[in-house]
């Protein structure tokens, strides 16, 4: 009997149970404000998932996931902003305030909702593919890549603040009405919005899980453990790294779109270094080698921040920081590794116990 934690069927069952649990929520929660808040946790879950995929399974520590998230969010906010503009009033008000008398080129594709939404996801994904491709082919890895993503994130952060007439500057964008999609209004406080986020989280999780279980995922995990050996075996390390980084960016971009749909707001704060680092904290605390663990990590930390944060307003960051230090120091694989070793304990106990009744002295061969 092996460790149940590594059993694929058991893993899929746990994932199914988890999502079944999430699916029950909108039926039991009446408070639309709470539902909206829970849906934003789903967005954080997606972000933690994307970090886990890229860092836990690809070995690429990405401190700039805020780029993909933020660009996706800006794309979505631009689309939603343009939905409220019409023929007589074609220019968003903040542009008029910045004395811009025509719609900039950058904004024109967003006049069409479909093109806008496709761009909101495609642009960050393309950025990740290009940036990742360039970096990984130069064999930038490990801490260096982390610093580079940090630099890139800061670059985007500063340019968004600087180009105020095009981006709304520090104030960001606040689309005045909720998303219209295919003649249908997605009220951010309705169960519909929750279901949208739920489906994207489910889709992203299944996609990520399938990737990690495929032979592609095995190679990325081998790269994580020893990239030189994989390179000597003839694999294109840079190619694998680029793909996993891009998929992770795609998930984050979708998360960004969902986030703006829920909160109708985006600002440079979404590209802040602190926010990107907190995504890494979620994955690290939940367990970066476990997709589900990372999602739960995000739920726990953000949930605790919302509820304990009010009670321990002044000491919350102190608690979070301290907790994070303890996890990194003593539990480098996060809370999920507790489950793993717990189940492992169970598995090894089970072995001798089942051997006892027939009085067989021979040791049971390990699986």
């Amino acid at each position, binding site marked *: 009997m092996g460790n149940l934690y590594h059993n694929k069927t058991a893993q899929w069952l746990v994932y199914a149970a988890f999502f079944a649990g999430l699916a029950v929520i909108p039926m039991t929660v009446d408070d639309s404000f709470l539902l909206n808040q829970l849906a934003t946790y789903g967005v954080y879950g997606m972000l933690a998932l994307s970090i886990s995929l890229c860092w836990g399974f690809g070995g690429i520590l990405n401190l700039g996931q805020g780029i993909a998230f933020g660009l996706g969010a800006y794309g979505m906010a631009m689309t939603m902003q343009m939905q409220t503009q019409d023929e007589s009033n074609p220019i968003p008000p903040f542009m008029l305030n910045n004395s811009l008398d025509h719609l900039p080129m950058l904004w024109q594709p967003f006049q069409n909702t479909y093109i806008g939404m496709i761009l909101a996801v495609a642009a960050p994904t393309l950025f990740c593919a290009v940036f990742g491709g360039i*970096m990984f082919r130069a*064999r930038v890895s490990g801490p260096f890549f982390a610093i*580079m993503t940090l630099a890139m994130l800061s670059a985007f952060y*500063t340019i968004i603040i600087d180009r105020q007439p095009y981006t709304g500057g520090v104030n960001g964008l606040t689309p005045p009405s909720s998303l219209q999609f295919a003649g249908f209004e997605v009220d951010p406080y309705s169960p519909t919005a929750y279901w949208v986020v739920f489906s994207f989280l489910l889709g992203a999780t299944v996609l990520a899980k399938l990737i990690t279980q495929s032979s592609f995922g095995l190679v990325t995990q081998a790269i994580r453990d020893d990239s030189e050996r994989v390179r000597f075996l003839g694999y294109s390390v840079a190619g694998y790294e680029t793909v996993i980084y891009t998929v992770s960016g795609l998930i984050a971009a979708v998360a960004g779109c969902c986030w703006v749909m829920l909160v109708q707001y985006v600002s440079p704060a979404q590209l802040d270094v602190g926010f990107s680092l907190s995504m890494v904290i979620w994955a690290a605390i939940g367990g970066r080698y476990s997709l589900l663990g990372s999602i739960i990590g995000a739920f726990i930390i953000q949930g605790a921040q919302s509820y304990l944060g009010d009670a321990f307003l*002044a000491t919350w960051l*102190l608690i979070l*920081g301290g907790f994070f230090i303890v996890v990194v*120091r003593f539990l*480098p694989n996060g809370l999920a590794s507790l489950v793993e070793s717990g189940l492992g304990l169970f598995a090894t106990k089970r072995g001798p116990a089942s051997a006892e009744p027939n009085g067989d002295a021979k040791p049971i061969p390990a699986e």
Partner: protein
Amino acid sequence: MDLGSLLNALILGVSIASIWLIAALGLTIIYGTAGVINMAHGEFIMLGAYSSYMLQFYLGVPYLLCLPASFVIVALVGLALERGLIRYLYNRPLDTLLATYGVSLVLMQGVRLIFGSDPKYLAVPEIFQSNVMLGSASISTFRIVVLGVTALLVFALWLLFYKTRFGVQVRAVMQNKEMAASFGINSGRIYMMTFALGAGLAGVAGALFGVLAIVLPTMGASYVVQAFLMVVVGGGSLAGSVVASGVTGEMQSVFAFFTNDTFARFIIFVLIVVFLRFRPQGLFAQAGARR
């Protein structure tokens, strides 16, 4: 465009470079020696500023004495951190990055709890508050003080690393830890000393930045990314950081002269990324084994 104001920008660039360099000095030592990515470096800078504030406000210590005192205080904090946490993580470089980020959260919030979020100010002697004319450029005296302190520290570090027994040991550990250990060098002790030294340098930087800008619990965050970039571009060596800060400081100032500060910073970030694409090991790569 007149030549005078461009000259002005160049002189200002030297000042910017010295600010970036002094922020990056401690990080260079820590990263260059132990390979530790210290995300709490910005908070060490902040602690330096608050140490000076405390000494000045409660004990009435004159400002110039606050500089060495901040060095000692923050070095002690760094020493405690190294002994209590970092030394367990040397073989896990990415985890040092995460753990020190946790430390930075704790330090930032801890200081906010003790001192509050309202800005504090450091008082400096009268003579530092004036401006001086350098040709056509006017520059505040204090920026010259920063430049002087930076130059002094770089010189002192050069002496320490290349002219003393301790420096030889540090460089030996940097190149090959095991080999150095087999020659009787206690690498754990070297790491401890360099971490404390790096933290102390951040403390001095904080005492200076507290005058240039206001003292806030969050002030460290604005320096840490730039400091990292200087170290990475420089390749982790002292000379590398000096050149990297010099070049980027000048570029920042000149670009800012043609556009504005924020856009100049954007160009710098992008250029650094492009540069590191072609030279990931930085300007001056470390001799010997790379971790």
